């Protein structure tokens, strides 16, 4: 093998409170497509940002063609021969395809841009890469795939040593992905080193030659794609080497399935976010959503709450068809949603605990009918005791609470509205074990009281412990639904996630 065109040796990068990259080595050879794998937060984007000079590494070095370089910014990276094409196409939609390829470096004569030359050269380049588009057409009128390819053509025409593709396929359909892969293979054969980031395992296996796996900012290893099975890859990514995991009590299946479903979704999906899926939740049922980070879990539950609007399918709440155009409609039908990011999307940190708790109820009542002080205190007191929110001071600013207690405040907010369906997105992330157990217990007891719960968690054990039914997601697609009977194990679910089949 020839020498590496790009090498990172012992690179570390920290942000306040986070170690994003710790002593990572990385090599990229000319003429290869190299996949960078890892869950969200594994350090993929940080690594790319160090390579493109957006962030400076705290330690370690980057070598380009054997020489040590310090990249100062995307512009500098480009002059060194490292070009990046992001998921969001960074071109100007109001200009023509040809102009997007050449803007900033237009051929000109006596100060005047030579449009004919631009169009001719753009047409040549597009033909060379087999991109079938009229160079005179406005970029915004092209499909996303074409825009992405135009971005690649521009990047390669400027500097063609290293090409970084950051999730280029996430909003493309199958044919468009094929078109992109064709161009990628052609570039590889021309000797370009391509770094490819994607959440889609199938695509990674289809196009990449080698892969580097990161987990929690650390290098797990560098593998030839052909030598690494999918199950091993998922194992490396999640750090769960399928050792025996503690097996816990699994709630038995009951006759609740007979009842009218609280939520019935048919063919609900949103382009670029999650493929259409069916979902039924009955009263008193806990449905767990399992899948890798980025597999579409949050996207799925946001559709159920109307936080995002689905572009296909129908939803019935309590047997009645409902058009979920916004969260207020879902709330009116008794749906409550605790978002994943409790700090930015749920809790209002400057308000007190008590104020946070009554927020949803007040909103449901309407602003013209304020809750009386006495009623408020009674409710807040009741739920703070029930959920054991600690410290038990309703007048404390919510920001001063620990993560677990903040989560309980959010739960209290929704429980107070007595929802029929409670959607919990990662309610136990980042909180300590004790609080975790309490929240799990609470979910189970809510279900016993007849509340339907849709539960998202990255921890398979947790999903298995409390759900009656598990929906498995992969690559933004719901691929399996399994009743949680005794024989289901985290390993079994991992295998489904890795292979896409129930074996």
């Amino acid at each position, binding site marked *: 093998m020839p020498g590496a065109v790009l090498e990172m040796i012992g690179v570390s990068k920290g942000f306040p409170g986070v170690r994003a990259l710790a002593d990572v080595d990385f090599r990229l050879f000319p003429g290869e497509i190299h996949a960078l794998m890892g869950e969200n937060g594994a350090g993929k984007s940080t690594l790319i940002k160090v390579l493109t000079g957006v962030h400076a590494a705290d330690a370690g070095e980057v070598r380009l063609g054997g020489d040590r370089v310090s990249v100062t910014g995307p512009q500098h990276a480009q002059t060194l021969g490292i070009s990046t094409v992001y998921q969001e196409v960074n071109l100007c*939609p109001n200009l023509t395809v040809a102009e997007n390829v050449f803007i900033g470096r237009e051929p000109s004569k006596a100060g005047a841009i030579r449009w004919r030359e631009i169009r001719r050269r753009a047409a040549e380049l597009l033909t060379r890469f087999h991109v079938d588009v009229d160079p005179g057409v406005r970029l915004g009128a092209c499909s996303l795939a074409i825009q992405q390819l135009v971005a690649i053509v521009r990047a390669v025409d400027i500097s063609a040593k290293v090409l970084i593709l950051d999730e280029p396929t996430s909003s493309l359909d199958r044919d468009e992905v094929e078109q992109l892969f064709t161009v990628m293979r052609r570039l590889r054969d021309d000797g370009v080193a391509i770094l490819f980031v994607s959440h889609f395992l199938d695509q990674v296996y289809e196009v990449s030659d080698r892969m580097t796996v990161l987990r929690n900012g650390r290098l797990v290893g560098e593998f030839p794609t052909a030598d690494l099975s999918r199950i091993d890859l998922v194992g490396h990514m999640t750090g769960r080497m399928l050792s025996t995991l503690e097996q816990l009590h699994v709630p038995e299946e009951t006759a609740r399935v007979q009842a009218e479903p609280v939520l019935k979704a048919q063919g609900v999906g949103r382009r670029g976010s999650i493929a259409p899926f069916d979902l039924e939740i009955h009263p008193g049922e806990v449905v767990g959503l399992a899948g890798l980070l980025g597999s579409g879990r949050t996207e799925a539950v946001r559709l159920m709450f109307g936080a995002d609007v689905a572009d296909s399918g129908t939803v019935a709440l309590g047997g009645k068809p409902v058009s979920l155009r916004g969260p207020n409609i879902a709330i009116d039908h008794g749906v409550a949603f605790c978002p994943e990011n409790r700090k930015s999307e749920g809790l209002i940190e400057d308000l007190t605990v008590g104020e946070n708790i009554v927020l949803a109820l007040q909103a449901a009542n309407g602003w013209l009918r304020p809750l009386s002080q006495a009623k408020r205190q009674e409710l807040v007191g009741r739920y703070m005791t029930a959920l054991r929110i600690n410290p038990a001071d309703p007048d404390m600013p919510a920001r001063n609470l620990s993560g677990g207690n903040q989560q309980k405040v959010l739960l209290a907010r929704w429980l107070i509205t007595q929802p029929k369906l409670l959607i919990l997105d990662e309610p136990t992330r980042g909180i300590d074990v004790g609080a975790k157990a309490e929240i799990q217990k609470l979910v189970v007891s809510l279900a016993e009281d007849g509340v339907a719960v849709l539960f998202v968690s990255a921890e398979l054990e947790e999903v298995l412990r409390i759900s009656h039914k598990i929906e498995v997601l992969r690559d933004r697609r719901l691929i399996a639904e399994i009743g949680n009977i005794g024989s289901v194990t985290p390993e079994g679910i991992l295998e489904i996630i890795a292979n896409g089949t129930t074996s």
Partner: protein
Amino acid sequence: MTTLGMRGPVRIRREHAAVLVTFGLLVAMFAAGSIVYPGFGSGQVVVDLFIDNGFLLVIAIGMTFVILTGGIDLSVGAVAALSAMLCAFLLEQWHWPVAAVLPLVLLVGIGFGFGMGYVIHHFEIQPFIATLAGMFLARGLCFVISIDQISITNPFFTEWAQTRIPLGEETNLTPTVLIGLAVLAGAFWTLHYTRFGRAVYAIGGSAQSALLMGLPVARTRIGAYMVSGLCSSLGGLLFAFYTISASGLHEVGTELDAIAAVVIGGTLLTGGSGYVVGTALGVMLLGTIQTMLRFQGTLSSWWTRIAIGVLLLLFILLQRLLGSSRTRR
């Protein structure tokens, strides 16, 4: 219209629709005027449109640059008034030579544009607020120079005001018309055949992308405000030539007329799409409405405002329609 698109980046595309609509409306309006009012359909009326609105044309062209980048410049009227005041003051009180005064005044306009562009870009201030501050500053400075109107008696100015360039038998041009057309041609060339001009469009399309594509965003954005400052200054001078006087009360509200002309000419307020030719048509359309009211004779001049208001609304709705059918693709 199509002749403009022969070799340039321009072809008949959807963005042209708005310009064509404006053009059609202008022709229809003019035809209607010619039928209803005798004497309306003469070449001199057309030329008068340029003569009476030459200063607005120049100012609106500068405004087009700024709006194409996605910004707005509210200071244009005040900068124009200040330029005229400064010019009149230096000529009449200090008796400076014309050859020194004119370049100096234009430099002041450019300087104003630079200052506002610098603040907008480097401190990330909303263009609306930054240029509003510039507007108050320039307007205030007018009254620092003089509270009263200054009449200009400088022979260069009085001669200029009387100069007529014959065009055919009954039609006469003024130098203002020629300057306006030259500015229009220069602006068109700059926007379509220079890197600066293309960067103006790119920033209007997506400033973030322009930055990542390595375009000189800072230079271009500030440059657009400098062009606007220069055009305002020149517009102010043209207005001074036209009225042979200067006053701090002149050209109040011109910024709004200019914005209206730009929008009616088919330029998107969000930036990235539009043509100076459209702006020229917009100015002509506003001028035609005024001329029609003048021929009509009995209607109050406020009807001009009402007509402009209705037109603006229509054109913004039209843009919305064109724009939404574009994003749906």
